[in-house]
């Protein structure tokens, strides 16, 4: 009989997911005040600060929350004292994000070194621990295998980030452009993409009732991507090949979504829209230097606004109510009043959030003409996300206590 404790206390992943919209709002407000500088250069201090507020504060909280939950559920990987460990990781991530953004904004070495120490220690210890747990896990599914690569990618991203901080603040003699290229490469394709792919292997069939992914593709996709990354780290000229694993992923994702038995579920078109944008950005990114008309800030923004935002929305719209529902069912084993998780997080909320995410992705390419439409939509999205997660948690609390 299998009888492990798989579930994580619901507050551990939820704390990360509830914090994420705050960082999006802070980044959007700062962006509104410095849009001209940000759009003009990817190396401007304001651009670097806002990118890290988005990718560490917003995306990082969502991805670490999802990673903790899915690692516990799929692979039984959880800390001995999950609540304490969750607080430590959460606290260090928020402090490190704030220090890093402030340090980049002001180009202040002390703040940058403090950020490097906090984020470096926390994320390297965390990735080392989780990688070991996932490696030792008896789980043999493709998602767990993909999570291992993704965690390794996070560790490499952090290591390159620390090297960058050492170059900037201590004058360590390393080739800055090469380390920066590896930081971006490992962050986007070594950490974010494998995590999204691994999560998709589980949550798309689970919530959208699609056929399981083909076994061979599911097993080979993330290792193939990792192999490609290693080749690229050595031979940057191969960068255009990086689109291949993404192409395989998106084609299979679209096939799966087409076969979904939940045709009206908004998560279906959110995954599709995010996947197509991911493919578009990965296809264009290698040609940034060759095509002067291709704006790197616009392309990076499309990665976040067009690809990540809809996929995160689809993930959150299922993972948050599912977590709350599991907690509710455990807290009210008999005589429950709620019949389905839609009573905690109605589908119309996801449709509304999805509509905002779609509008953000569509208006971002017009940012050079006018930044205000996309900024207003980003702020509206951040507020809406904050409100729906809060209301879902409140609904769950009310259902449990009363």
């Amino acid at each position, binding site marked *: 009989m299998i009888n*492990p404790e798989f579930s994580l206390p619901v507050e551990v992943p939820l704390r990360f997911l509830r914090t994420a919209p705050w960082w999006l709002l802070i980044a959007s407000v700062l962006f509104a005040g410095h849009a001209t500088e940000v759009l003009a250069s990817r190396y401007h201090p304001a651009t670097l600060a806002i990118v890290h507020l988005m990718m560490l504060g917003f995306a990082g909280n969502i991805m670490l929350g999802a990673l903790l939950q899915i690692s516990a559920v799929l692979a039984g990987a959880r800390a001995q004292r999950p609540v304490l460990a969750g607080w430590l990781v959460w606290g260090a991530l928020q402090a490190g994000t704030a220090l890093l953004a402030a340090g980049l904004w002001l180009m202040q070495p002390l703040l940058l070194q403090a950020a490097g120490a906090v984020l470096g220690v926390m994320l390297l210890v965390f990735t080392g621990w989780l990688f070991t747990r996932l490696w030792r896990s008896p789980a043999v599914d493709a998602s767990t295998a993909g999570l291992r690569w993704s965690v390794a990618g996070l560790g490499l991203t952090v290591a390159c980030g620390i090297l960058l901080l050492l170059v900037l603040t201590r004058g360590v003699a390393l080739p800055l452009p090469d380390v920066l290229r590896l930081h971006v490469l490992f962050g986007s394709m070594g950490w974010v993409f494998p995590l999204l792919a691994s999560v998709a292997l*589980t949550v798309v*069939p689970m919530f959208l*009732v699609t056929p*399981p992914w083909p076994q061979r593709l599911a097993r080979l996709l993330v290792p193939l991507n990792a192999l490609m990354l290693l080749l690229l780290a050595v031979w940057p000229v191969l960068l255009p090949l990086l689109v291949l694993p993404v192409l395989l992923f998106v084609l299979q994702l679209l096939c799966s979504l087409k076969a979904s038995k939940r045709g009206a579920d908004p998560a279906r078109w959110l995954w599709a829209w995010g996947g197509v944008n991911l493919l578009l950005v990965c296809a264009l990114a290698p040609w940034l230097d060759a095509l002067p008309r291709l704006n790197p800030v616009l392309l990076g923004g499309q990665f976040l606004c067009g690809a990540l935002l809809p996929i995160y929305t689809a993930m959150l719209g299922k993972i948050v109510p599912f977590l709350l529902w599991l907690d509710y069912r*455990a807290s009210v084993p008999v005589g429950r009043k709620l019949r389905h*998780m839609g009573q905690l997080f109605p589908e119309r909320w996801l449709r509304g959030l999805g509509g905002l995410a779609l509008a953000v992705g569509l208006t971002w390419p017009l940012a050079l003409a006018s930044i205000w439409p996309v900024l207003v939509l980003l702020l509206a999205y951040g507020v809406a996300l904050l409100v729906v997660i809060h209301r879902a948690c409140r609904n769950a609390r009310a259902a449990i206590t009363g």
Partner: protein
Amino acid sequence: MDDCIDLSALAAPEPMDRVLDWLDAAAPGACQAFLLPRMPYPLFDHLARRPCDWETEPQPDGRAVVTIRRNASHDQS
């Protein structure tokens, strides 16, 4: 034991809900097999809190058959 109930075409968390609803209503000694869309790890915590024994059998296509026997008391063997 009755025939295996196929819940593999349902979206989460409905398969888990159906299994728990059956278990909560089952008479002591009742046994039932369920075909689920995947190995239902979150279900196991819920089963562990109830008076039952269970066995799981992974299927080659990624689905899993979970067979549950309702016990007479809250003492789980």
